[in-house]
């Protein structure tokens, strides 16, 4: 790699890391204020404007709390578990494109840390690493409730990984690629026919994943809720049943790392939902006009034009991600929790057959050339 590529990659990583680390405190604020909004109360409103600094106060508290270690834990795994669940949640974002590409001095820069040729497979393999952290935490804490939480999460995540992986097979078939960059780029094309029916040209819609794979989208959406351990699938934590589940014996920053992992997982899941089914960085309807208007009014040079385009793409990706993050919060404060065996029933008896059927139907469509 040349020096330029090194610098570009470093800049992209720095950008992502900074943004992702900001997501955690902001999401914890959104979660509190959002739930307060839904529940007709105020939420944190004392510290800073709209209580925004509450997250900072939390961070300070987490850092300064005593790092107590219960005497009955198995130390090595106990310490490593938060890291094992935190790191995978962080590195999944590496393959998610957050804007298209730009050429600087003849170098094409893709706004994606690594456009791996195994993109989606990487996502799934890394995302499933997260469960090891939870199992380790549950096992190493050496307590019955944590063990129950770990067992629940292991079976839950493994079951839902199946349907999650299979639901995306349809997308891979449609776009003939596992590279997330390719998938996002192809979603900018227009959808000319819906199955065997040709859509009149005035009604063309972008070829977003949700339009070509509606069932796949639903299955994926439900599966990521289970994967991220959010309500209605927050059984590994299930505070009223098994106290706090796998992180029962954790305190201070180690607990905070589990929480950060949860929010980062949510961000990654939202990023994936946006990339696979909502066109990734493709501009939202109306944003194209805005972009052209902007470029024309200010009469920008071609390079500045390019950067404005990139900015709009990042913004449009950001809006999609934010929407799904809000969706996570929204669902959490609306629905009750499933029971463990009902969750398993849903995973194996409903989601798995549905995702297999989805693959079959997609394959048939692809065979007849309707996609």
């Amino acid at each position, binding site marked *: 790699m040349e020096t330029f590529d090194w610098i570009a990659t470093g800049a992209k990583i720095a950008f992502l890391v900074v943004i992702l680390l900001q997501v955690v405190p902001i999401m914890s604020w959104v979660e509190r204020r959002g*739930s307060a909004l*839904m*529940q*007709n*109360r105020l939420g944190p409103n004392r510290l800073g404007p709209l209580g925004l600094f509450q997250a900072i106060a939390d961070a300070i508290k987490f850092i300064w709390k005593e790092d107590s270690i219960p*005497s*009955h834990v*198995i*130390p090595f795994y106990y310490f490593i578990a938060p890291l094992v669940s935190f790191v995978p949640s962080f590195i999944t974002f590496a393959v998610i494109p957050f804007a298209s590409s730009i050429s600087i001095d003849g170098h094409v820069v893709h706004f994606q840390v690594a456009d791996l040729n195994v993109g989606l497979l990487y996502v799934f393999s890394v995302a499933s690493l997260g469960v090891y952290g939870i199992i380790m935490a549950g096992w190493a804490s*050496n307590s*019955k*409730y944590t063990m*129950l939480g770990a067992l*629940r999460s292991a079976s839950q995540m493994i079951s839902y990984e199946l349907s999650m992986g299979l639901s995306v097979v349809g997308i891979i078939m449609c776009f003939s690629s596992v590279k997330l960059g390719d998938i996002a780029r192809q979603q900018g094309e227009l959808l000319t026919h819906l199955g065997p029916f040709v859509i009149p040209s005035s009604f063309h819609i972008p070829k977003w994943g949700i339009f070509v794979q509606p069932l796949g989208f639903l299955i994926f959406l439900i599966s990521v809720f289970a994967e991220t351990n959010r*309500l*209605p699938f*927050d059984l590994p934590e*299930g*505070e*009223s*049943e*098994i*106290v706090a589940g796998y992180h029962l014996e954790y305190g201070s920053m180690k607990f905070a790392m589990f929480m950060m992992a949860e929010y980062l997982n949510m961000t990654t899941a939202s990023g994936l939902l946006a990339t696979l089914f909502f066109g990734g960085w493709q501009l939202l309807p109306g944003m194209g006009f805005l972009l052209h208007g902007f470029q024309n009014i200010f009469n920008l040079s071609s390079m500045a034009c390019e950067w404005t385009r990139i900015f709009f793409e990042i913004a449009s990706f950001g809006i999609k991600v934010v929407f799904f993050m809000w969706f996570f919060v929204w669902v959490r*404060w*609306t*629905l*009750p*929790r*499933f*029971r*463990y*065996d*009902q969750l398993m029933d849903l995973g194996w008896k409903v989601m798995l057959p549905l995702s297999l059927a989805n693959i079959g139907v997609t394959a048939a469509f692809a065979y007849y050339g309707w996609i």
Partner: protein
Amino acid sequence: MKERKDRVAQMHLPAGYQMEHDPDDLWGDARVIVNIGPTHPAMHGALRMVAKLNGETIEKSYCEFGFTHRAKEKLGENRTFHNFIVYTDRLNYCSALINNVTYVRAVEKLMGVEVPDRCIWIRMICCELARITDHLICVGINAVDLGAFSFFLYGFHQREEAYTLIEKLCGARLTTSYPRVGGLMADAPEGFEKELKAWVLKTREVIDEMDELLTNNKIWLKRTVGISVFDKEKCLQYSYTGPNARAAGIDIDLRRDQPCMFYKDVEFDVPISQNGDVYDRYMIRIAEMRQSLNILSQCADRIKKGSIWTEDKRVRIPDKDIVHNTMEGMIYHFKFFMTGFDVPEGEAYTQFEAANGELGFYIVSKGSPRAHRMRIRGPSVWHYQGLTPMVEGEKIADMVAGLGSINVIAGELDR
């Protein structure tokens, strides 16, 4: 490091402990004994259940209580009848007013004291307000245990409003101590009926909203229908009363069956359901809240101005004006609060339909200002006994739902 490992190993098997092995039972070792409570978040108050789990299924369990035992009944024998009113607040603290009213009615029954109409109407309002707050908290916490937090807060706000009404009556929100033997601590303030009616209207809306949010939710139905079933027969065996019994098809309601106060004169239905599962108990409570709202609006219509104190000199607390301005009044006041009033010899059991079930006070008097024997029948005791058979073979999560739905209040359970 090694030391710690040894300690870990010891925790699994204490010294000298021999594991019993059944060679045919492959999964025998898979059973694990879990202490659920007394500090478990799902245990409402300090209750303890020791459960033998197979995976997550409760194979065997037993329940323990008494963690908050305060010897209330013994205290009843050491305090004057007037003093004991405050202790009744702490029985079922979710509906303190019902306990207060039932207790003072028990003492009044022993003494043969009649209270004026306005007093009775206000007491009825108190009981129904308390019933609604109790049911709101029960269905709300039950939903929280199953993960529906918003539902709980919808109701909780209205519960706080109810407490504001109660505060207007007696100045306290949770531990009210409002009724007195032969009367009330204070009259309802001016315009109380109007505020009550406004609250009733608002609460009707809120309950409808809660109903819409949760009752037909698929996940809620999955978690509650057919869960922790306690059928009619079991309910009779375990002396279930109140909403829990009505959910299993036992048509009892002491307000209707043994009408006291003015329950004869107000119209209300007694909702009955047949299945006796968590869902039915939830539905019964929702329906009962609506009935209580009906009673409240009737009470607000029919309440008249008048005295709130009985004319009986034995129990009437002298007015402050007499106390401050006359010598006799002062002495009487002092004697009243220091030695209390004598209750004629005899015994009486007074029961009332509390929010949870039948609440009874059995008082034996030997003619002194203190009870000779005091016995309280808290419905939670009976309900809690049934938890073990109720949850046998169910999941931990179902146990949490079941316990929430029978509404065991530790204060009343342990007394």
